[in-house]
C-alpha cells in the first residue's frame, strides 16, 4: 500500500521538477535537495523526510515534458517516489527506466492527496475510493532494462558479453 502525497496537473515540465538553475548539480546524491525547488510546500515536505518511503505522486498527462535533464529523474529517485500518470514524456520515461525510477502509466487514474493505492502489474487500485484503474505495461524492450537494474548494468552486461 502506498500513500498519495501530491497530485499535480498535466504537462508538468522538467523545469518544474528540477529548475534549470540547479543543473550544475549532477550527482544523484545531491540532486534530491532541489526536487520541486520552486514549489516550497512540496519541496519542504520532501526535504523534511516526513513522507513514507514509496510515497506516490499522481500527475496528469505528459509528465516530465521538456528538457532531457536527467536530474529531473535522479532527484525523484532520491526521494523514493513512485509516479503514477496517464502518460509520460518520452525522454523522461526513458530516463526513469534507465535510472530505476518507478513510473506507472495509468490512463484513467483518479486519486486525491491522502488516498491509499495498491499498485499492481495490471492495475492501480485506489483503496480509498474503491476504484480500479488499468495499467499499460512497458514494452518488453524497456522492461528488460528495468529487470537488469537499469541501463548501466544493462550496458555493462552487453560490454562484458561482447568480450570487448
Amino acid at each position, binding site marked *: 500500500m502506498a500513500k498519495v502525497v501530491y497530485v499535480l496537473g498535466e504537462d508538468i515540465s522538467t523545469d518544474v521538477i528540477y*529548475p534549470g538553475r540547479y543543473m550544475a548539480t549532477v550527482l544523484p546524491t545531491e540532486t534530491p535537495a532541489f526536487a520541486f525547488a520552486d514549489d516550497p510546500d512540496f519541496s519542504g515536505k520532501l526535504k523534511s523526510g516526513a513522507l513514507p518511503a514509496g510515497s506516490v505522486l499522481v500527475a496528469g498527462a*505528459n509528465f516530465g515534458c521538456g*528538457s532531457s535533464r536527467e536530474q529531473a529523474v535522479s532527484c525523484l529517485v532520491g526521494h523514493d517516489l513512485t509516479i503514477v500518470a496517464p502518460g509520460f514524456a518520452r525522454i523522461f520515461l526513458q530516463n526513469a527506466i534507465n535510472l530505476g525510477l518507478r513510473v506507472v502509466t495509468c490512463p484513467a487514474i483518479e486519486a486525491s492527496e491522502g488516498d491509499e493505492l495498491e499498485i499492481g502489474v495490471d492495475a492501480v487500485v485506489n483503496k480509498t475510493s474503491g476504484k480500479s484503474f488499468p495499467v499499460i505495461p512497458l514494452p518488453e524492450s524497456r522492461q528488460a532494462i528495468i529487470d537488469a537494474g*537499469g541501463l*548501466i548494468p*544493462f550496458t*555493462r552486461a552487453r*560490454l562484458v558479453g561482447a568480450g570487448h
Partner: protein
Amino acid sequence: MGKTVVQKILARASGRNEVEVGDVVEPRVDLAMSHENAALVINQFLEIYEGTGLAAELWDPDRVAIIFDHRVPAESSKTATNQKKIRDFVAAHRIRRFHDIRGDVGGICHQILPEHGYVRPGAVVVGTDSHTTSHGALGAFAFGIGATEMASVWALGSVLNVQVPATLRVQVEGTFPEGVGPKDLILEVIGTLTAEGANFRVLEFHGETIRNMSTSGRLVLCNMSVEAGATAGIVPGDDETVRYLREEAGVTDELHLVTPDADAAYERTIEIDVSQLEPRIACPHTVDNVKPILEVAGRKIDQVVIGSCTNGRLDDLADAARILEGRTVATGTRMLIFPASAKVYQEALARGYLATFMKAGAVVMNPGCGPCLGIHEGALGDGEVALSTTNRNFKGRMGNPTAEVYLCSPAVAAASAVTGVITDPRVGRS
C-alpha cells in the same frame, strides 16, 4: 507498403533491409552530442566499466561532439569545475569535435553542429539535449536522450532498444505573408497537436512552403517539434540541404539524401496553408497555449529576448535589425540579444546588425543558451513578463516561477521591444 524517412534511416543504421513501426532496433550512432551535461555523462560512462576489467574507451571519439553552451562563460565555480573536468576528458579521449568557450568557433550546440557540417542527411544523431530534434532540418534522424543513455552510446556506439516510431506527415503549402514565418508555423502546429500530440512520434515536414524554406527556417520547425512531444522532426534532404552543407558548412564529401516512399504509411497527415497565417504567440505556461497575436497584443513586457537555438541565426537577427533600425527600445523594457554562435555573431557584426541593436538600446550578449533556461543571466524579477524568441515558457523557465514568458518570432519580438507591449509586426496593424 512504402517507408517513411525515419524507417529508412533506422533500417540502414540497424543493418536491416527494412523496419516496421514498433520494431525494436539498435541503430548505430553517427554523431553523439553533449554540452555541459557531459560532466554527468562522464560519471555514468566510467561507472559502466566499474568491475569489468575493461578500459573505459569511447567507441569512436570522432563521432562524439561536446559543445559548451548552457553556462558560458561559467556563472559559478561549480560550473567552471565541471567544464574543467570535461576539458580534461576531451583531451584524454582525443575528442576533436569539442567547442570550448571561444569567440571564433563557439556557440549553441544546435547551431554548431549544422554550421560545422557535423550532421548529414540520413544520419542517426543523438544528443543529451531535448532540442537535438533540430538536426532533422538536415534530413537526419536526431533525438534527445538522457545522460546515462549517452554513456551507453559512448561505450557501445549504438542506442539500445529503440522502438521504431510512427510518423505524422505535416503538409505545408502557400507563401508566408509579410511578417509571418517558420516560428509562427511551428507554434501553429504545436497549438494544433498539443504538447503531447506527437509523443513518441516523428513529424515529417513536406510541401511547397518547406521546399522553399531555408535550412535556418527548417531548423526552427525541427527544433520545436519536441514541444509537441515529438521524438524527432525531419525535413527529408533535398537541394536546399545540399546547398546548405556545401556552401555554408563547407562539406565536400558525398551526400546521400534519404526520401520517403510515395506510399509511405503515415499515422495521419496534418495540412496547413500558411498564406493566411497570422503571427502566433505561445502564452504562459505551456508551449501549446498558442494564440493569434491579436488576442494578446498590448500586453506590457519587461524583457524582450532574441536568440537561442530556435531563433538566434543571421536571418532572425536581420529581421530584428530591419525593425529596430533607427528606433529605440521602449523605456521600462530591456532587450537582450544573443546570437546562436560566434560565426553568427561575427557576421551580424560585419553587417552592422549589432550596432543597430546597441544604438536602439538592446544589450548584445555572447553566444550561448543565455536567458532561455534561467541558468545564469537574464533572469526575470517577481511577476515580470518576458517576450522571447526561445522555445519554452514553462513556469520558472527564465529563472523565476512567478514570472511569465511569451514565445514569438524575431519580428514580433523586435516590434514589441520598440513599443514595450506585445505588438503585431505587420505594417499598419500596430
